[in-house]
């Protein structure tokens, strides 16, 4: 499996885990197009924080890489890297490659 696919898989697992708490119908079967944050997306800022913490931990545990998903654009509704599963995966791949 390519790195990008592994990352998307980890994000999807984290979304499913988060959705056990927040129970949003839009997040029942997440895929790379699933909207996460910004615009008419599903997560509020608090849920986004929970997702970020879980994704960082999964990347650390399963890929053995310590990354920090902190970004000036995090809370932006238009340019946030957390808009969809795919934009988040792209962002994480960028961070990993930068290291």
């Amino acid at each position: 499996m390519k790195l990008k696919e592994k990352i998307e898989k980890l994000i999807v697992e984290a979304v499913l885990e988060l959705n056990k708490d927040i129970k949003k119908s839009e997040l029942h079967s997440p895929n790379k197009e699933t909207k996460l944050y910004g615009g008419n997306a599903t997560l509020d800022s608090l849920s986004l924080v929970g997702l970020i913490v879980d994704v960082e931990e999964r990347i650390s545990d399963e890929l053995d890489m310590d990354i920090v998903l902190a970004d000036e654009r995090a809370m932006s509704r238009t340019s946030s890297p957390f808009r969809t599963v795919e934009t988040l995966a792209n962002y994480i791949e960028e961070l990993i490659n930068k290291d």
Partner: protein
Amino acid sequence: MSKIILLTGSSKGIGKYLVEHFLDSGHIVIGCSRGESAIINDNYTHFTLDVTSEKDVISMVRGVKKVHGRIDVLINNAGVASMNHLITTPSATAKKVMDINFFGTFLLIREVSKVMMKQKYGRIVNFTTVASAFRLEGEAIYAASKAAVENLTQTTSNELAIFGITVNAIGPAPVETDLIKAVPKNKINALLERQAIKRFGSFEDVKNVIEFYMDDKSDFITGQIIYLGGVYK
């Protein structure tokens, strides 16, 4: 009940005293400082690092999570003081003091609260100083860095309350440690005179407030700054 405690600045002074006390009380302690630690105990792990290094702090916190599974208490004790007139303070000194006292505290809170959020429990204790409350001349940069810590304490207490995490701060009165050894005696005496209770603070005084914040029964205590010796803003 045994707690997992992470304490910065653990190799000397108040930090070393607190580590030894918590170990004697049956807790598991993880400490860090720029130098090695002389403490040898099966329940103590030491990391040699600089609290301003994001990479090292992340690596330590994630390492602790992997070994112990949780972190119950974070004590941000690491700090440096600087006594100087504003006019004769080098900019490099100002940046270094802000870096260690404020940025280091921020980094530790950010990373440890990620662990605490998942366990829906945590106690964070930061260190400020009576010099901040006094607006103490000769300590402009040190006091300003601690004022930043106080504001960070109160704002993060708002942000983290929903996760069962409390964030408080203690502001010791002068305690006879390395931090104040270079301060002239007459300056220290003048400072003690401004306190309601005119004596040096002790390590026991500091421990007492920290244990109050750490107590499971203190789950309704957050965003508070306690100065020792009867000092207030």
